[in-house]
C-alpha cells in the first residue's frame, strides 16, 4: 500500500479531483482517435440494431432486373450480381459481424480470465497443467486453429448464429487473456484482502469471482475491446473462405467471396463497400481499445 499521508501523493490526488468532473470531455481531448472510435462503434451498433427500419430493401431479395447496378439514388451503394441491394446487405452484414465479434470476444475473454485467475489462485498442479495447455494453444497460429475447429465441428445454429463458429473464433483468444489474468492474479494472491476472505471461510469460487475478478476488470475490458476487432477480422476471413457464415445470411466476408472479385473488375462497388465496412469497424474497435489501454494503464506509453 502507498503511504497516503506523504505530501506528493496527496497533492496528486487533489489535482485529480477537478479534472474528473468532465471525464468524457477529457477522454475526447486526450484520445481523439479513441473518441472517434467510440462514436463509430455506437453509430454502427445503432445502425445494425435498427437495420430493419433503415434498410431500403430486403437484403435477401433477388431482383435480376436490377443486377449489377452502379450506386444511384435508388440503390445507394449499388446492387450485386443477384440484384440484391448492397446498402441493405452491408447493414445486415454488420449485425452478423458485430454479433459474432462481440460474443466471441466476450466468451474468449471471460473464460480466459477465469482460467487465468483460477490458475494463479490454486497454483500447484492445476497451474502447471493449465499453463502447459495454454502454451499449446498459443503455439497454433490463430486463424489455423479457428479453421480446424470450424471444419471439424460443422454447423450448429442457435438463435440465428452458428455456435461452433463463435467458439472457433473465441478459442484462440482464451490463452491470451488467461496469460494476462494469471500474471495480474499472481500478485493479487498475496494481498491481505484475499487472505482475509480465506480466513473468513469463503469458498474458492466466491473469492475468485467477487474478490479477485473485479481487480482485473481494467485489462479485461481493454482486451475485450481489442479482440472484437480480431474476431470480426477472423469471421470475415472464414466467411470469405466459405467456412464461416453461409448464404443466405448476409456477411461482409461472404459478400467478397465467390466471383465477387471477377464481377468487381467492371463493377467495383461490389467489393469496395463490404470491405470498407469491415475496415471501419476494425478501425473503431482498435482505436477505442488503444485509448482504453492508455487510460486504464498509466504505465503504458501514452504516445502509442
Amino acid at each position, binding site marked *: 500500500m502507498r503511504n497516503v499521508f506523504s505530501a506528493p501523493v496527496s497533492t496528486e490526488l487533489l489535482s485529480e479531483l477537478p479534472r474528473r468532473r468532465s471525464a468524457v470531455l477529457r477522454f475526447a481531448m486526450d484520445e481523439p482517435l479513441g473518441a472517434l472510435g467510440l462514436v463509430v462503434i455506437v453509430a454502427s451498433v445503432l445502425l445494425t440494431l435498427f437495420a430493419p427500419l433503415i434498410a431500403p430493401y430486403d437484403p435477401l431479395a433477388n431482383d435480376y432486373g436490377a443486377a449489377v447496378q452502379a450506386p444511384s439514388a435508388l440503390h445507394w451503394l449499388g446492387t450485386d450480381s443477384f440484384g440484391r441491394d448492397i446498402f441493405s446487405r452491408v447493414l445486415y452484414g454488420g449485425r452478423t459481424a458485430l454479433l459474432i465479434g462481440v460474443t466471441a470476444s466476450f466468451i474468449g475473454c471471460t473464460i480466459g480470465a477465469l482460467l487465468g485467475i483460477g490458475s494463479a489462485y490454486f497454483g500447484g498442479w492445476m497451474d502447471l497443467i493449465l499453463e502447459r495447455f495454454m502454451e499449446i494453444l498459443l503455439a497454433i497460429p490463430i486463424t*489455423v486453429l479457428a479453421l480446424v475447429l470450424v471444419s471439424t465441428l460443422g454447423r450448429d445454429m442457435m438463435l440465428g448464429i452458428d455456435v461452433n463458429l463463435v467458439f472457433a473464433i473465441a478459442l484462440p483468444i482464451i490463452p491470451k487473456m488467461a496469460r494476462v489474468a494469471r500474471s495480474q492474479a499472481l500478485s493479487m494472491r498475496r494481498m491481505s484482502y484475499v487472505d482475509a476472505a480465506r480466513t473468513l471461510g469463503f469458498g474458492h469460487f466466491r473469492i475468485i469471482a467477487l474478490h479477485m475478478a473485479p481487480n482485473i476488470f481494467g485489462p479485461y475490458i481493454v482486451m475485450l475491446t481489442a479482440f472484437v476487432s480480431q474476431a470480426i*477480422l477472423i469471421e470475415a476471413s472464414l466467411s*470469405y473462405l466459405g467456412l464461416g457464415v453461409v448464404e443466405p445470411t448476409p456477411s461482409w466476408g461472404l459478400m467478397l467471396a465467390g466471383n465477387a472479385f471477377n464481377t468487381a473488375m467492371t463493377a467495383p462497388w461490389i467489393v469496395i463497400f463490404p*470491405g470498407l465496412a*469491415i*475496415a*471501419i469497424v476494425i478501425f473503431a474497435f*482498435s482505436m477505442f481499445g488503444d485509448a482504453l489501454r492508455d487510460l486504464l494503464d498509466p504505465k503504458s506509453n501514452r504516445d502509442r
Partner: protein
Amino acid sequence: MIRYVISRLLLSIPTLLGVATLIFFMLNVLPGDAVETMLRAEGGNPTPELVASERARLGLDRPILVQYGDFLSGLATFDLGTSSWTGKPVVEEIALRLPVTLQVAVLAMLLALAIAIPLGTIAGVYHETWIDYAIRSFAIGGIALPSFWFGMLIALVMLWYFNWLPPLGSPSLFDDPLRLLQQLALPAIAIGYRYAAILIRMMRSSVIEVMHEDFVRTARAKGLRAGHIIRRHVIPNSLLPTITMIGLEFALLIGSLVVIEQVFSLNGIGRLFLDAVSRSDLAIIQGIVMVLTVIFVVVNLLVDFAYAAIDPRIKLA
C-alpha cells in the same frame, strides 16, 4: 550460446507433442464421419458397406489409441501418413505447395521490415509533428484494412490503370525469378502492409522511449551528431521490442497467407488446406497444422536467438 539454443530446441518438443495430440483428438474424436463426407464429395450416395471397407483401407477402423500411437511414431520419422484423396504421402503433397507459401511469407516479412524500421524511427524521432501524424495514419490503415480485401483492391487498381494482372502458372525461383516476383509481389504487399503497420507502431514507441534514455543524453552532451546517435544508439536499442513483435505477429501472418492465396489463386498450403477440408482429408489437415505450427515455433525461436545475439545484457540461462 550453443547450450542455450539446444535447450530451447529441446523445450519446444513437448509443446509440439501437445499440439499434435490436441489436433489429432480434435479431428478424430469430434463428431462427423470423415470417410462418408469424402465419399459424398466424390459423388453419389455411399452404401454402409462401401463406407466400412474404405474405413478399413484407411486404417480408421482401428482403436483410436492405436491410430494415435501410429500418428506419433510417424511424426518422429517425419512421416505424416498418406492423403486419403490422392493416395500420395502427405509430406510429398505439402512439400509441393510449401515453397509458394514460404516465398510469399518471406517477401512480406522483408517488405514489412524495410518499411517499418525507417518509418517507425522517423515517426519516433519527429514525434508530434506532421510527419509523425502522416506515418501514424499510414500505420492505422494497415491495421484496419483486412489483407484479403486490400489485396483485391490493389489487384483491381493494377488492372484498371496499368491493365496488368499477376502472371499465372508456377514459375520457379531459380529459372525465372522475375516472373516469380511479379506473381508474388501483390500478395506480399497485401499481407505485408498489416505486418509493417504493427511494427511501425512498436518501433515508433520504443524510439520515443529510447530517446529519453540517459545514454542518449550522454551522447548528445559529448557533442555527437544527431544522425550518428540515432544510427548507433537509438535504432539498435529500439529494435529489440520490435523483433519480439515480429515473432508474435507471425501467427496472424500465417493466417492471412491461407486467405491471400485464395484471392490470388496461388497453389500453396492454404489452397491445399481448403481442398483437404472440403474432402475431409484428415491426414492432410493434420499435416498442414503441424507444419504451420512448427514454422511458427521456429520463427519465435529464431526471434529469441536474435534477441540474445543482439542484446549483450540478456543472460543466457
